[in-house]
């Protein structure tokens, strides 16, 4: 099979699995998960073959795997769609294939496959546990299997299709199709437990918020198409003439060039999808969904897709950049990215829900990537995207495993505590060793623990780039965010795994099944090793031993290869200080938290802590600014005034005019004229009949006489006419 054919086939197995599960196997849990995991495995295997072949091509950037077909006729030509694997897509494909497969396997264990059905479980609610009796006659409460097991795998399959489609497509339109399919699946999976009002609200919030970005993104795509006549990446982003033309023509909006305005519009799509400030509000709420969903959609793949898209359009964003002076669109990105990175990191410090901390961490890390891209650090952004997908996927899966373990304890002890609240945990390292060690590796990668974790190398490259090109404001912001990242990560690890159990449930927590720990181990390997491919060549010591091929490989996607930044000790030192300092502080503050004790930072920070805990009141502000006015407009204006008063009034007016017109016609036309004529004819016939009635005597002889008289009279007339009138 040629590589191009293989690439065309890659997204299809999950889609097939989706249809098969929905149509045929949705009553059979085993068949459903075999189909879904099997499909993910097939796509994974194909992706690895493609990835291996891509690595063997010497100049993949110039001669990528590219295949197109004519799709939609547009006048004399066709709108073409196709698949493309260049260095960037190859890198993305690699982590997508791995994380998707691992998360599919994890979902089997997460949804308690093999456990009995729950006593009171209902569809649309998380499983509540089942009562079983062991051989000694003791009753236990154990986790019960998810009531809508097959449905989960069907949606996940559809999602995987969307993600593969997005990564492999060679144009912005099919990318957008994949983007929206993922948006739909995100909605469906956040609202997976739809009987919970909070899950319903979160699903709607996620869908509506990302829709704001998507509308602008679609505008950008349309603008790009009208400006260039194509949406294929290679024709626009690998074509200096087109880029130059777009950069030089003015859009007439705020003094932006056409390229700048298109880039800005597309970037707004990313703000929605990758949950950047000010559209970040949906991602933390999205944690209402099952944890594999949070890991796959809301950490590793879908939110990464937003960043992938801006990386993809980077040539357009940077068109017109000269001598390292960044374009206006890029400065917007740098600002939003850096601001989001710091902003979300501060919120994460004050969250107690283990998944919410990670959600804000994801927002913050995506901000890093956006900021990196905003200052032109193309390779660093891609690098961080790849490593982040692995370690954040790992952290989410780890948190799911922790929640699962604590839930087990909750069921066992019957204690009523929130299994997601870190304050109810503690001391889990002994109960759940595999989860602990893998979570530790993931957490260290997130904090940028020096030298051996992936996060260190990718984050360090962003720092180095920001410092080398003199973007000190971005540099300082990101360094502060990194300090907070290390702090809240260590806070999370300390509260969850270290110290002593703070509740009975945590005391009885249990390590999860192999289907959940295996993905943790695999992703932990990547969380460490994925960084080694990107070690700068001039890094002291290691750079000589293990020079990473990543920079050369990824920057081959661009027409002009970007020069790697020269090594400077200052950003490295900063990175070491913030990572280690943050981790140490986190451990120092949280190592002695007792049960029922409030967060140690609550007292010293005071009002600031409340502000952070309530996420700067953004939900309340948006509720006041947008949600309530929207309700007001729809209820008071649209429904009451416009619909009921104006439209209904208009319709009622038409109706009453019609009625009065009808009765006028009836009274003045129909009744006197039409009816009168009809009656007149009938009455006349009756009168004539009455007039002639007397001669109808019924006596034959009289008729005969009449006939005789008539014959005689007519004979006389004829005789007269024939004889005399000649």
């Amino acid at each position, binding site marked *: 099979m040629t590589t191009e054919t293989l690439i065309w086939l890659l997204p299809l197995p999950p889609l097939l699995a989706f249809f098969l599960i929905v149509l045929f196997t949705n009553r059979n849990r085993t068949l459903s998960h075999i189909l879904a995991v099997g499909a993910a495995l097939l796509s994974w295997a194909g992706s690895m073959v493609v990835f291996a072949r891509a690595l063997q091509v010497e100049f993949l950037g110039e001669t990528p795997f590219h295949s197109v077909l004519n799709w939609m006729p547009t006048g004399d030509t066709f709108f073409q769609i196709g698949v493309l694997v260049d260095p960037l897509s190859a890198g993305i494909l690699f982590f997508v294939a791995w994380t998707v497969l691992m998360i599919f396997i994890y979902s089997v264990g997460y949804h308690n496959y093999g456990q009995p059905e729950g006593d009171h479980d209902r569809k649309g609610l998380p499983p509540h546990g089942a009562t079983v009796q062991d051989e000694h006659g003791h009753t236990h409460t154990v986790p019960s299997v998810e009531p809508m097991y097959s449905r989960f795998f069907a949606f996940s399959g559809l999602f995987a299709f969307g993600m593969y489609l997005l990564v492999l497509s060679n144009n912005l339109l099919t990318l957008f199709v994949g983007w929206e399919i993922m948006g739909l699946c995100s909605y469906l999976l956040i609202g997976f437990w739809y009987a919970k009002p909070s899950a319903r609200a979160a699903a709607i919030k996620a869908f509506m918020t990302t829709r704001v970005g998507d509308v602008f993104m679609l505008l950008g795509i349309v603008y790009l198409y009208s400006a260039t006549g194509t949406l294929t990446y290679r024709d626009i982003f690998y074509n200096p003439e087109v880029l130059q033309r777009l950069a030089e023509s003015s859009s007439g909006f705020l003094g932006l060039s056409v390229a700048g305005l298109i880039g800005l519009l597309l970037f707004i799509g990313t703000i929605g999808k990758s949950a950047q400030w000010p559209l970040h509000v949906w991602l933390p709420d999205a944690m209402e969904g099952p944890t594999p969903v949070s890991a796959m959609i809301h950490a590793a793949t879908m939110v990464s897709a937003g960043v992938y898209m801006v990386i993809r359009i980077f040539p357009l964003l940077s068109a017109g950049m000269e001598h390292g002076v960044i374009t206006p669109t890029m400065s917007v990105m740098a600002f939003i990215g850096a601001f989001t990175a710091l902003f979300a990191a501060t919120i994460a410090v004050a969250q107690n829900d283990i998944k919410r901390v990670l959600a804000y961490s994801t927002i913050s890390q995506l901000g890093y990537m956006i900021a990196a891209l905003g200052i032109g650090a193309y390779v660093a952004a891609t690098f961080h995207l790849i490593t982040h997908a692995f370690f954040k996927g790992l952290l989410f899966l780890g948190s799911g495993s922790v929640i699962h373990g604590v839930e087990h304890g909750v069921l066992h002890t019957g204690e009523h505590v929130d299994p997601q609240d870190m304050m109810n945990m503690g001391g889990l390292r002994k109960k759940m060793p595999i989860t602990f060690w893998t979570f530790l590796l993931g957490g260290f990668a997130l904090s940028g623990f020096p030298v051996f974790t992936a996060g260190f190398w990718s984050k360090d490259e962003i720092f180095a780039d920001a410092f080398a090109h003199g973007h000190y404001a971005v540099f300082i912001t990101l360094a502060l965010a990194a300090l907070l990242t290390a702090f809240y990560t260590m806070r999370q690890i300390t509260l969850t795994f270290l110290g002593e159990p703070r509740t009975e449930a945590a005391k009885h927590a249990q390590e999860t099944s192999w289907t959940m720990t295996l993905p943790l181990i695999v992703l932990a390997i990547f969380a460490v090793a994925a960084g080694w491919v990107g070690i700068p060549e001039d890094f002291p010591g290691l750079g000589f031993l293990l020079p990473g091929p990543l920079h050369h490989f990824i920057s081959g996607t661009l027409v002009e290869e970007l020069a790697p930044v020269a090594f400077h000790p200052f950003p490295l030192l900063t990175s070491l200080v913030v990572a280690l300092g943050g981790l140490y502080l986190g451990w120092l503050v949280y190592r002695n938290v007792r049960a029922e004790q409030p967060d140690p930072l609550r007292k010293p920070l005071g009002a600031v802590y409340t502000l952070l805990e309530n996420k700067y009141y953004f939900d309340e502000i948006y509720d006041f600014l947008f949600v309530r006015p929207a309700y007001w407009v729809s209820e008071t204006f649209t429904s009451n005034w416009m619909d009921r008063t104006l439209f209904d009034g208009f319709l009622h007016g038409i109706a009453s005019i019609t009625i009065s017109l009808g009765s006028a016609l009836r009274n003045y036309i129909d009744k006197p004229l039409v009816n009168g004529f009809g009656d007149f004819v009938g009455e006349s016939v009756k009168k004539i009949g009455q007039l002639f009635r007397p001669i109808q005597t*019924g006596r034959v002889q009289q008729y005969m006489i009449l006939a005789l008289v008539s014959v005689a009279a007519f004979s006389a007339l004829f005789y007269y006419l024939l004889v005399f009138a000649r």
Partner: protein
Amino acid sequence: MIPLSWFLIFAAALFCIGLYGVLARKNAIAILMGVELMLNAVNINLVAFWRYGSLEGITGQAFAVMVFAVAAAEVAVGLALFISIYRRRNTVAADEIDMLKF
């Protein structure tokens, strides 16, 4: 040979007698008999015109025979009807059979 006009006068007289019978009699059977007389007057005319016209065709005779046949059928039907009426109403007076009169 007896001139044609004699036959015609005779036929006319017979017709008038028949007509008088039809108009003047109450009994339906008598009316029927009047009708028969009128038909036979016509037959006499037909045969007489044939005899005094060209002798090649037999049209007059054929017509006369046809009229006999039809009159016989008519009498059969008419008498049957009168018997039927008589059984129901016990009368055959024409002016008493007025059920269809408005």
